[in-house]
């Protein structure tokens, strides 16, 4: 089985780097994007298994990116997890409503992130098989 491909979208280069370093160490294939448009292009073009999506992006916000990915790819869409500094209940609700599979609040522990990512991918594969 090929290495799972994760797209990390964040306008903050530090965060992108942090996530990318950690995930690569854990054996994931990591792509990055720093804004909504790039994220959309990469998600559609590179077919990642998981998108870690920041909400506050400079051009198209993460919720919109999520909706567009879902709209374009439908059942073939990757798992999408939001990675946001907005931690209120309403923010989580909005994220999940936009089609997110998970909502991870910053600041997160890298180790915890890895666990969540693995969980998402396992789940995704399982549900993908069911589909």
């Amino acid at each position, binding site marked *: 089985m090929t290495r799972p491909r994760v797209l990390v979208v964040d306008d903050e280069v530090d965060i992108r780097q942090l996530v990318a*370093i950690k995930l690569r*160490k854990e054996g994931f294939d990591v792509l990055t994007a720093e804004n909504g448009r790039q994220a959309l292009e990469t998600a559609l073009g590179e077919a990642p298994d998981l998108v870690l999506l920041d909400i506050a992006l400079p051009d198209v916000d993460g919720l919109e990116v999520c909706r567009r990915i879902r709209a374009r790819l439908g059942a073939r869409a990757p798992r999408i997890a939001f990675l946001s*500094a907005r931690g*209120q209940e309403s923010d989580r609700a909005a994220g999940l409503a936009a089609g997110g599979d998970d909502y991870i609040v910053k600041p997160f522990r890298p180790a915890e992130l890895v666990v969540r990512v693995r969980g998402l991918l396992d789940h995704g594969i399982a549900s993908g098989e069911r589909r």
Partner: protein
Amino acid sequence: MGNEKRASTGQSIGGFLSRSFVGLFLLLSVGMVVNLWALHQMRERHRQVAASALELTLGRYRLLTAMTDQDTGLRSFLLTGSERGLDPMVRGRDAFTAELQRLDTLGPRIVTPDVREQVERQRIAAQRWMLEAADPLVQARRESAAAANDLAGRLPLAELFEEFRAVNQAFATWIAERRRREAAETDRDAQLLVGAVVALSLLLIVGWAVVLWQLKRRVRRPLATLVAAAEAVRAGKRSIAIDLPYCDEFAVMAASLEAMVSAIRRQEAELNSEMRHRDTILEHMAEGLAVAEPDGRIVLLNPAAIYLLGVDEAPDPHEAAAAVLSRLVACDPHDEPEIGQARVSELGDRSLSIISSPVPAGEGLDLGIVHVIRDVTDLERIDRMKSEFIALVSHELRTPLTSIRGFTELILDGDAGPVSDEVASYLTTVRANTDRLVSLVNDLLDISRIEAGRVTLKMERLELGGLLREAAGMIQPQLSSRRQRLDLRLPGFLPRLYADRDRLIQVVTNLLSNAHKYSPDESAISLSAEWRDGAVRLSVTDQGIGISPENQRRLFTKFFRADEGEVRKVHGTGLGLAISRALVEMHGGHIEVQSRPGGGSTFTVVLPVVFRVDARPSDEPTTRVPSQRVLVVDGDVAAAALVRRYLEQAGYGAQVAATVQEAVDAIRSGPVDAVVLDLLLPRLAGFEVIDRVREQPGGASMPIILASIRGDQALGVRLGVVDVLAKPLSEPHLRLAARGALDDATSRKVLVVGADAATRALVSITLRDDGCEPLPVADLLRGAELARSWGPDAIVLDLSVPGPRGEEVVERLQSDPATRDVPLIVFSPGDRRSLHDLYPLSRADLKTGAEPLDGLIAHVRQALGSAAVAGERR
């Protein structure tokens, strides 16, 4: 003002009247006394005159008789010469002398000088007759008859006698004359007396007339003046000076009238200024104020409201405002729950906050509405800005924190190669402080959202035990790091509560975390819960450093940190307790602290156990069968009418009973499917109604909804009613309660029998939470009867209070075909085996009291489940 002047110039009418009365009375008395005295005198004199006339007439007559006797004696002696013939003369002379003496002794009142003179004349006349005629003749006769004859021819015997007779006659005439004169005098006196009486009467009449005239003068004029003054006041005059001539009662009255008017003037002035004040406030306040009558007509509309509602151009602002308001606020004046809630409506480019509160418009149930309208456009904008700011700050702070913490972790995890112990220890410090910053940001966000009222609780029915275990589990790693021990003490039964699960966990973990921070290593912390006084009390107790009394007061203020050196070493934001308190208060509860320095602390979260209808009524149309009838028992006719209206609007038939007897009659005479009862019937007959209803045929299972000031569900359970609503009743709650009560046919009926009220309440509440319909009964035999008549789906029999009939009832239930198949759960503190021995073949499920109550509930559930299966099979 004029009091002093009047005081010097007059007297009171009362004084005048009493003086007049006294004067006239004295006059009358003196007159009467004088008159009576005069009358008495007159009578006395009359009597004396009469007596004296009698005596004198008698005297004159006796003198005359005595003289006649003498004369007769003399003449007979002269004729006969016999000495015996002289006897009458001697007797007459003696009689004469005696009479003279008698007259002399009559006293000066009769024998006046006039009388004496008259008597003297008699005596002289008699003496002359005696000395000049009688005695010489007697002398002569003794010598010889001839000499006597001779002498008789010379002596004027007869003349002298006639002379005496004349004098005597004159005396009689004098007496008569005097008598006449005195009679005339008496007549004159009588006339005088009559005159005096007449004069006295006249005097009295005149006196009375004077008094009356004076009285009239002193009453009519002041009265007219006072009436005129009062009229002037009525007409609106507020400054009067009443000038009265006397200082009397009217003057006092006038003075108090003047004082009253000036008081009225002052009060009116105050009122006016108050009203002007209020009008000014109303006119100048930034909030719009509109007061609507029940029919929607606007009766008060201030300029701000006219402006805010955008009706300043309208020809009739009131009407236009009513239209706008009815569009913006669909507030039924009879609807109560919206009191004080602001709704924000958009009107053009403006955001308006409208608080509409129903207020009694007058007597009865007519409710008007007061709308307070505020322009919150700016507030909304600021609020949005604040939210954006908070979101921004949280984002801007969290992003760098994410990097710092993430990279620190990467290094610590060894992702960047091996880490020396020293580096690891430094990085651990970095990570710990990053965590502090993160929690500070979180707390700040929390508190700002709570303060902005932007936190809404997601209320759900919670099972507390699990929640507390979860909170304990979350804090466990922290405790383990310092080898602190957590004792979780949960009672066998805890009612479920309505609360926000996450928030409640947040509060409990905050308290636990505080206990952890301020307690020494290896100490014990306890987390306990109890149910007491209608509230659940969650306590966190530590053996830590404690809190001084003055710090206890400031404990819940934001950013408060105890200043003691010991405490300063502990990391914290100072926001945790403020947040916890705010969250608990949002739940309607409060936090109590018990602590003393060095003696540990106990923080207790007190949460009311709120029983209430889960949700607002759904909008589904009511498909009510109108045959379902609800009896409203309420002593307050107006309240009953309102409840009846609510029920009828909900599609029920409703009838009202105001007394116990009316209620009983209504249940007897017609089909009644449920009863809504206000406990505050006159003379506290509410409880009696329940008993009487239960006595009626079909009354035992009659659903009763209780309206009570406190809305105390535990009370309801004790009374065996299906629901307790807090007063004032709101329509949605009433509708839900009625629906619940009447549709309960599908819910499981559980008879809860037992002498112990607390157990009955506990079991009943728990069963109700489970969707059962419990019927608590205290008396065992009554319970056995209800087991037959009510037809329960299960029976819980509490024998924890031992009584003589427990076993008898078990036997009865088990032997009666009607109840034999009903699952029976016996709750007993006694020896399990003894009951088993007693009823080896019974299907009774025996529980001992030592086991927690929720075990019992599980048994009930199980029993009901099996009963359902059995029922299906049947």
